[in-house]
C-alpha cells in the first residue's frame, strides 16, 4: 500500500490532525488508559484499593483530583456530567470542575440528577434513585479504612491480603463498649461482598445504609493517595457493625424548611434544617407545588 500522508499512530496524533492539538478531556491517552485499566481491576476485585497513575490536576490535591481523573477518563462527547459537592452543585470547586470537564470533553453539563449520565460527587450519594446506565464517581480523601487502627500502610496491606480485620472490629467493639456506638460518623467502613473492608469516602451513615446492591457501578477515586476502588452493580455492601447493633442513620431536628421532607438527609443552615441534596429537594418541591 503506498505510504500515504504519515498515518497517525496515536489518538493524540489523530486529534492533532483534526485541529485538536490538546488531548481530549484534558488527560493524555496514557493516563486515561492507566485509569481505565485501574477501573477494570477495581471492578474485578470489589473493595480493593487499586493504585493508579494519579496525575497533577488543575484542581488541588484533596479537592477531588482523583474523582476528576476517573470522570475525565470515562467521559465521552454525548455524556451529560453533573458535579456536586456535599449535595450542592454550586460550590466553587464543583463549578470549576464541571466547567473543566464539559469544556475539555465537549460534553453537556447539568445539575439534574436524572439527566446526568456521569455524576461526580463529594461525600454524598444522590438521593434520587439512579438508573443502571448512570455512573457515580465519588471523591475520596482517605481510601484506607484501617488508617486509624493500622497506621502503617504496609501492615494494613497485610491485613487486607489476609482479610484479617480484627483491628477494625476491635476499634468498633471498644467504641461500642465505652460510648454505646461507633465513633465514626461519616466514612464508616463497609464490608464489600461480606469479605473486604473498604472506606466508602466520608459519606454520612444515611448514605452508607443506601450502598447495598445498587443498579449502577460506583467508582471511588483518591487522587492524593493515588488509589481507585470500585463497587460493581448489585454487589452486597454492609456497614461494619455487630450483628446485634446495626448502624443507625443520623436524625435531623426538623423537616426540610423548603420541601418539608422528613426522609432525606438534612443539615442545619442558619438554625433551619434543609435538605443536603439540593437537586432532590428541588425535584420534590416541583412535584408538590402545582
Amino acid at each position: 500500500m503506498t505510504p500515504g500522508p504519515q498515518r497517525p499512530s496515536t489518538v493524540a496524533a489523530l486529534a492533532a490532525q483534526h485541529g485538536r492539538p490538546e488531548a481530549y478531556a484534558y488527560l493524555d491517552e496514557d493516563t486515561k488508559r492507566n485509569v481505565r485499566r485501574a477501573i477494570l481491576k477495581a471492578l474485578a476485585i470489589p473493595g480493593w484499593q487499586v493504585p493508579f497513575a494519579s496525575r497533577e490536576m488543575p484542581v488541588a490535591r484533596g479537592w477531588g483530583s482523583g474523582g476528576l481523573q476517573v470522570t475525565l477518563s470515562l467521559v465521552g462527547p454525548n455524556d451529560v456530567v453533573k458535579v456536586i459537592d456535599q449535595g450542592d452543585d454550586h460550590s466553587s470547586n464543583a463549578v470549576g470542575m464541571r466547567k473543566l470537564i464539559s469544556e475539555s470533553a465537549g460534553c453537556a453539563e447539568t445539575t439534574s440528577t436524572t439527566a446526568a449520565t456521569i455524576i461526580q460527587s463529594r461525600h454524598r450519594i444522590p438521593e434520587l434513585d439512579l438508573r443502571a446506565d448512570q455512573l457515580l464517581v465519588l471523591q475520596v480523601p482517605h481510601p484506607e479504612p484501617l488508617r486509624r487502627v493500622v497506621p502503617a500502610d504496609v501492615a494494613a496491606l497485610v491485613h487486607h491480603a489476609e482479610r484479617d480485620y480484627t483491628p477494625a472490629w476491635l476499634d468498633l467493639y471498644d467504641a461500642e463498649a465505652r460510648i454505646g456506638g461507633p465513633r465514626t460518623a461519616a466514612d464508616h467502613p463497609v464490608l464489600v461482598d461480606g469479605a473486604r473492608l473498604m472506606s466508602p469516602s466520608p459519606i454520612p451513615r444515611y448514605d452508607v445504609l443506601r450502598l447495598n446492591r445498587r443498579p449502577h457501578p460506583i467508582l471511588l477515586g483518591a487522587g492524593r493517595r493515588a488509589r481507585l476502588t470500585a463497587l460493581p452493580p448489585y454487589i452486597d455492601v454492609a456497614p461494619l457493625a455487630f450483628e446485634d447493633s446495626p448502624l443507625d442513620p443520623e436524625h435531623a431536628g426538623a423537616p426540610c424548611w423548603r420541601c418539608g421532607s422528613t426522609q432525606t438527609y438534612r443539615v442545619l443552615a442558619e438554625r433551619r434544617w434543609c435538605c443536603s441534596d439540593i437537586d432532590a429537594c428541588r425535584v420534590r418541591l416541583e412535584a408538590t407545588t402545582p
Partner: protein
Amino acid sequence: MTTNAVADYNDRAPLVPPEPVVSVRRLAHRFGSGCDRCIDLTGEAAGTNRCCACGSVVAVYDASFDIGPHEVLGVVGESGSGKTTLLRCLHLDLTPDSGSISVGGQAINRSTVVMVHQNALAAGLYPRLAAESNVAERLLGGGARHFGEIHSRAAELLNELGLQPERHTDALMTFSGGMQQRVQLARALVDPPQVLLLDEPTTGLDPSVQADLLDVMQRVTEALGSASVVVSHDLAAVRVLASRIVVLHHGRIVEEGIAEQVLEDPQHPYTQLLVSSRLT
C-alpha cells in the same frame, strides 16, 4: 470414706504421665555472626556463653525438655542466662538457629501459644483501649461478631480474675501492674491455648499484689489445662506455680527436677548458689 476409694482410684490415673504437649529438642540460638572459634557448641559449659573471638553470644544451647498438659514448667536463672531467648523461641518471636519445637506433634504455630508478658504494654496489648476490649480482641480474632455475647464473655472472664465490672471499660493504661497481668490472663482464658507462657509474671509487683496474682495464676493454669512455662528469677513464685523446674546458666540447662528437689536439694553448684542466695 464410704466407697473403697483406693480401689476404684487405681484405674483412674496411669502410672506414667501422658504424651507431652510441647517437646523441645536440642534448641540452640546464637546472637551475632559466630565464627569457627566460637565456644564449641558441643563443649562443656565454659563458664561463659560469649565467644572470646567474635563476641557472639550463645543465648541458648542444646536445651531439651517436654511439658505435658496441666503441667507447669518453671525456668529459672539470672538475667542473661537465656531465659527470655528460650521464651521468645517458644512464642515464635525468634526462629532458633537449630533444634526443634513441636506442639501436639506438629510444628508450633501462632494460634496455639499465648504469652503473658512482664508488662502488658510490651505484650502488644492496646493501652488506650478498654480492658474489656483487650480481652474481646481474641474473641473477635476468632470470628465472634455478636457484641452482646462477646461483651458478656469478656466481662465474665474479667470478673473471674477479680476486676470489678465498673472498671472494665477503663483504658488499660490506667490499670496497675497486677491488674494488667490479670487482663493478660483473661485474654489467655478466652480460648485456651495449647501452650501458655508466663514471662516474669510477678516481677516488679508489690508483695500483696504478687500473692493475689499467684493465686489467680494457679487457678488459670489449672483451668486452662495447657502446657505452661513460667520464667522468673523469683524462686518463691516459681515454687508455687511450677511442678518442675529447669535451671538455665549461660544458655545451658544445668539442672532439671521437681520443684521441691531443685530448691531443697540442688545438685549443680550454680543452682546451689542461686538457691542459697534467696532471701528467707
